[in-house]
């Protein structure tokens, strides 16, 4: 067991995800503290999606460890996922009514006040309205609102559109944030490079 440090929200140690003897993403290690952000570059879209889901505690590493807060994603997945807001690459594609229902569902599952959840989501949607990365439908903005409204400590953005990561970190500067993306060139040489890591 690794020594735990309260100031670290996300700790990934030599994580690998293997299926049928094949690494589906480039292995990586990282630590993120509150207010820090990182962009994790993977050789392909599949690797980026697996890496995002792995850091959000949705899938478990085949080798290595992922700790979110004080919780191991393999041993205490529910407690770990409570701290994470995961934004899928497509955002939330449902209707306005479905969005409302989803907000209610999340309020119940995260065990937070519904009214506070709706207020937080409205605030996030208002802040993101008109942003270049969320054109008609605002599907991505809704995905961000659903992910961040429960008051999470870590935001994980899976293959976000241009400008989305910066907008999300500006919205919640106090939480840790991580985005995955695909290498623009020489993907074969990349091994889970941390391209950006700034306070």
């Amino acid at each position, binding site marked *: 067991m690794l020594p735990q440090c309260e100031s670290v929200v996300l700790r990934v140690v030599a994580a690998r995800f293997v299926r049928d003897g094949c690494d589906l993403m480039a292995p990586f290690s990282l630590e993120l503290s509150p207010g820090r952000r990182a962009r994790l570059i993977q050789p392909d879209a599949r690797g980026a999606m697996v890496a995002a889901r792995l850091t959000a505690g949705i899938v478990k590493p085949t080798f290595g460890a992922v700790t979110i807060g004080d919780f191991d994603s393999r041993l205490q997945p*529910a407690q770990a996922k*409570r701290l994470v807001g995961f934004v899928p690459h497509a955002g939330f594609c449902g209707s306005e009514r479905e969005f409302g229902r989803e907000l209610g*569902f999340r309020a119940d*599952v*995260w*065990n937070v006040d519904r009214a506070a959840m709706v207020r937080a989501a409205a605030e996030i949607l208002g802040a993101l309205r008109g942003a270049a990365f969320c054109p008609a439908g605002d599907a991505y903005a809704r995905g961000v609102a659903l992910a961040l409204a429960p008051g999470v400590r870590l935001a994980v953005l899976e293959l976000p559109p241009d400008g989305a990561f910066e907008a999300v970190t500006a919205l919640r500067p106090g939480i840790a944030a991580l985005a995955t993306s695909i290498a623009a060139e020489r993907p074969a040489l990349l091994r889970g490079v941390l391209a950006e890591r700034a306070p």
Partner: protein
Amino acid sequence: MNGTRATLAIVRREMDTRWLIGRALALAVGLAAGLSSEAGLVAAAALWFAVSGALRIDVRDGMYFTAPLYGRQLARAHALVALAGAFAAPAGTFAAWAIRGALDSEFAPAGLALPLLCAVTLAAVVALSATPRTGIARGAYALGA
């Protein structure tokens, strides 16, 4: 962590408009079958709706994987939804029997009511086991139900 609140949230999420329409249809068919007084028709309708209702549950919904839920909460919620759906057609049949004045005789030891309730419960639970599976395994569970 409030487990009951989360479990009921899953139940509400699964019992959407389409689910309610399906159960209303099951209730109506159960009522018609009960009025026809054909035991075979009653049993077939009840079992069909019990199995099809349970198979409709989407346990692979991506939202469940991102949410801080325990497997037991999901299992309980899905079982509640499947059983609530399975009892819709028998409820219609019981209403028909009540209209015909046959409710007491059907709930007697030699009646159809108790075997029908047991059968739909069993069918729904077995069919629920098909939902996380695909292909032949899924078909086998559905047929077994």
